[in-house]
């Protein structure tokens, strides 16, 4: 079974090619079904591989399938090779799993769209790239996927490219990602010059074996982190993610919540030995950036009115949590949170999509409310997702968030505090969203009448293709925590499973105060979550306190606008200056020479006056000069 690893990316690729060739013929809904089938079957293969791995001892859970030699030059040998080990398969599992669910969902959501088949074309291509990213045996194959998902997210964000906002958002996403890619490329260069190979095994073993100087390792780690910041929307490069909501909601769910944005976390986990080999402050930097991003995004989410924007910022915030975990050395926790987050965030996005679909593409939460009656299933599942992300036990989010906070406390209490505040805010704004959308009085009737667009028919529940995934994901969000229960060693399934790849565990923080008092922390976490929920209910449902939504928060601390102001203002002016310099100075010099020659010609021309006597004079002058020279040579 392990040798069929290549099938995992191959199937979506096949789907992509088929739709590319016959997409127009297939049309709706067959194209969608095909795509879904491909992803699903790929999922099946992954499961098979997973079982196969499971059947092996921890040492043998590591299998490389080399397809062909890609870039062999001199000492550089890069193979197009896939690596099947617990980490990659974990990633592959939820990529293909959630992927196929979202495909299914999209069949319903994209119903009636003229570019229906093209949408699935991109989706399959994305799944393929994402799988290359996670399954890659070396940095370059990962980079192939890395850029591939970037390109696909560009296509999908600007899917409705006739909307200028969509087109701009897509471009913004790609270019911002490129900044990260730059970091990743430099990291690769460093790794190659330090180790002479790009394969994870080579680099990691070298790092673990202390064959990489700490400074080099630091360089690599930091550059990888730059790359991760770009992909995983961390400060200061997060700005593209909120705009990415311009894309169709399934895209937001798949790419900008569940899979792609987590690839930064994946990469750092993959390269964890290098992080270990580098200076200790690297971890602090990562953790700090993560924590700050989490808090920053959470504060923004509090004041958003667009249903998807709230989720977008919460995604950024949750990603911050994952980086906080990585920085604190809690790789398992990071992966754990990644998985659970994938579950409930995908759920929430799909739910919001369902709402938007039901509200006829209305996204402003101020025009919603009391939808739980009209959209029971959506409402129910959404509420589960809310509980999960808010960190209410026993839902998935609670367990993973708690573990992250545990490590954070062990590592740096200030960061823990930030994490806790963020958790509070998370519970708060998620509750706010649920209330605004599903409870309270319906604000969409009057709204519908005032613009009269579709006031005649009310919001409605979505078709089964859309609802089914919601249900499944809701289930996962409930039980997801079971992957890694802190009760005893045996319940920590994920940690055990990932052991071959990530060789550290809670043991690493054993002996710290946090470790011994982790139950206390657990309780604190619960209290925080609950108080957040309560506060929010008090404000939004009961109206006990007045609503606090400062403009500055609604404007995301004006960070985004400031950036665009700089890029569009001084930046653009500078570029224009360069272009002008090229035209005026560089080219001007060239043409200047031309005009100079002409001028000289015009000047010399005056000598050719046509007057014999001045000609005689010129000749005489020449003669005098010439003779003078000779005379001097003769006399002296």
């Amino acid at each position: 079974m392990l040798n069929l690893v290549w099938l995992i990316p191959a199937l979506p690729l096949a789907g992509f090619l088929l739709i590319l060739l016959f997409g127009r013929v297939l049309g709706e809904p067959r194209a969608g079904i095909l795509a879904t089938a491909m992803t699903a079957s790929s999922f099946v293969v992954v499961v098979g591989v997973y079982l196969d791995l499971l059947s092996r001892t921890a040492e043998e859970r590591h299998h490389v399938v080399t397809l062909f030699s890609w870039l062999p030059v001199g000492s550089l040998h890069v193979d197009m090779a896939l690596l099947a080990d617990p980490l990659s398969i974990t990633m592959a599992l939820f990529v293909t799993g959630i992927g196929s669910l979202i495909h299914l969902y999209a069949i319903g959501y994209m119903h009636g769209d003229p570019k229906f088949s093209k949408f699935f074309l991109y989706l399959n291509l994305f799944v393929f790239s994402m799988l290359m990213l996670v399954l890659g045996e070396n940095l370059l194959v990962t980079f192939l996927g890395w850029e591939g998902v970037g390109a696909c997210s560009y296509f999908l964000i600007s899917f409705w490219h006739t909307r200028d906002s969509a087109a701009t958002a897509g471009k913004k996403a790609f270019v911002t990602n490129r900044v990260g890619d730059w970091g990743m490329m430099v990291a690769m260069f460093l790794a190659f010059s330090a180790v002479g190979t790009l394969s994870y095994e080579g680099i990691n073993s070298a790092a673990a074996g202390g064959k990489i100087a700490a400074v080099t390792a630091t360089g690599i780690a930091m550059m990888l982190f730059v790359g991760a910041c770009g992909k995983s929307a961390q400060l200061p490069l997060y700005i593209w993610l909120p705009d990415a909501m311009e894309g169709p909601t399934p895209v937001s769910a798949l790419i900008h919540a569940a899979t792609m944005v987590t690839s930064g976390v994946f990469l750092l986990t993959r390269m964890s030995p290098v992080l270990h080999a580098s200076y200790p402050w690297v971890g602090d930097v990562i953790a700090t950036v993560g924590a700050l991003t989490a808090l920053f995004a959470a504060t923004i989410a509090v004041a958003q009115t667009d249903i998807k924007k709230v989720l977008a910022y919460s995604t950024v915030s949750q990603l911050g949590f994952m980086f906080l975990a990585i920085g604190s050395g809690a790789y398992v926790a990071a992966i754990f949170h990644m998985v659970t987050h994938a579950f409930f965030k995908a759920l929430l996005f799909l739910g919001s999509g369902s709402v938007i679909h039901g509200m006829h593409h209305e996204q402003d939460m101020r025009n919603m409310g009391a939808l739980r009656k009209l959209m029971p299933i959506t409402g129910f599942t959404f509420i589960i997702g809310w509980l999960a992300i808010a960190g209410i036990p026993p839902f998935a989010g609670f367990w993973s968030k708690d573990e992250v906070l545990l490590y954070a406390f062990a590592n740096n209490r200030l960061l823990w505090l930030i994490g806790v505040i963020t958790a509070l805010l998370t519970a708060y704004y998620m509750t706010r969203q649920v209330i605004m959308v599903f409870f309270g009085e319906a604000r969409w009737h009057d709204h519908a009448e005032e613009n009269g667009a579709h006031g005649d028919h009310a919001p409605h529940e979505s078709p089964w293709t859309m609802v089914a995934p919601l249900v499944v994901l809701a289930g996962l969000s409930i039980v997801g925590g079971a992957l890694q229960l802190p009760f005893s060693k045996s319940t920590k399934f994920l940690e055990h499973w990932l052991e071959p790849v990530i060789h550290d565990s809670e043991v690493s923080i054993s002996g710290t105060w946090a470790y011994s008092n982790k139950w206390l922390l657990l309780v604190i976490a619960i209290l925080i979550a609950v108080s957040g929920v309560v506060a929010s209910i008090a404000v939004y449902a009961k109206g006990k306190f007045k609503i606090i939504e400062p403009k500055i928060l609604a404007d995301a601390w004006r960070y985004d606008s400031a950036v665009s102001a700089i890029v569009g203002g001084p930046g653009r002016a500078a570029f224009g200056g360069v272009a002008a310099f090229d035209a005026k100075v560089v080219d001007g010099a060239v043409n200047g020479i031309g005009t100079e020659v002409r001028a000289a010609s015009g000047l010399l021309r005056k000598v050719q006056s046509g007057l014999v006597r001045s000609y005689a004079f010129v000749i005489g002058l020449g003669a005098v000069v010439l003779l003078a020279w000779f005379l001097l040579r003769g006399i002296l």
Partner: protein
Amino acid sequence: MELFVFVVAAAMVLVGALGVVTRSNPVHAAMSLVLTLFGIAVMFVAHNAHFLAAVQVIVYAGAIVVLFLFVIMLLGVDRAEDLSVEPITNQRPLAAIIGVGISAIVIAAIVSSRAGLGASGEGVNETTLESPDANIRQLARVIFSDNVFAFEITSVLLLVAVIGTVVMARKTKSVGTRK
């Protein structure tokens, strides 16, 4: 005595030359040219170049200048040229500088190397009463032995002159051609 001859001849030469340059009337200019030529002839004599002196008088004064005058008369251009104006700005001072410069340079060269000029040939025969034709003989020998080729080439030169007169003087369409 030689000094006296030199002074007189030099005076003739220079006066004539200046005349050529300054006389506004072509006829006068031609006349001053004659003066110069005679001066030169005198100097030839002073250097025992009697034959050349004769030829100088005959060819130059006798033929060339006459030809000049003939042309002047023929074309009726003996009107005085107005020398008071000079169309080309600064032409005269510049010309003066050039001329003086050339002379100065050559003079400097001559003076600086006058000592270096030593005898190289077998000498120039003195024409005396005993041998009045010494110069002619010597010249003739050299011309018709060593320089015979040059002498022959002069015939081509004259031929060119002849053709030239034909080309320039004949009426344009006078040539017999088939149309």
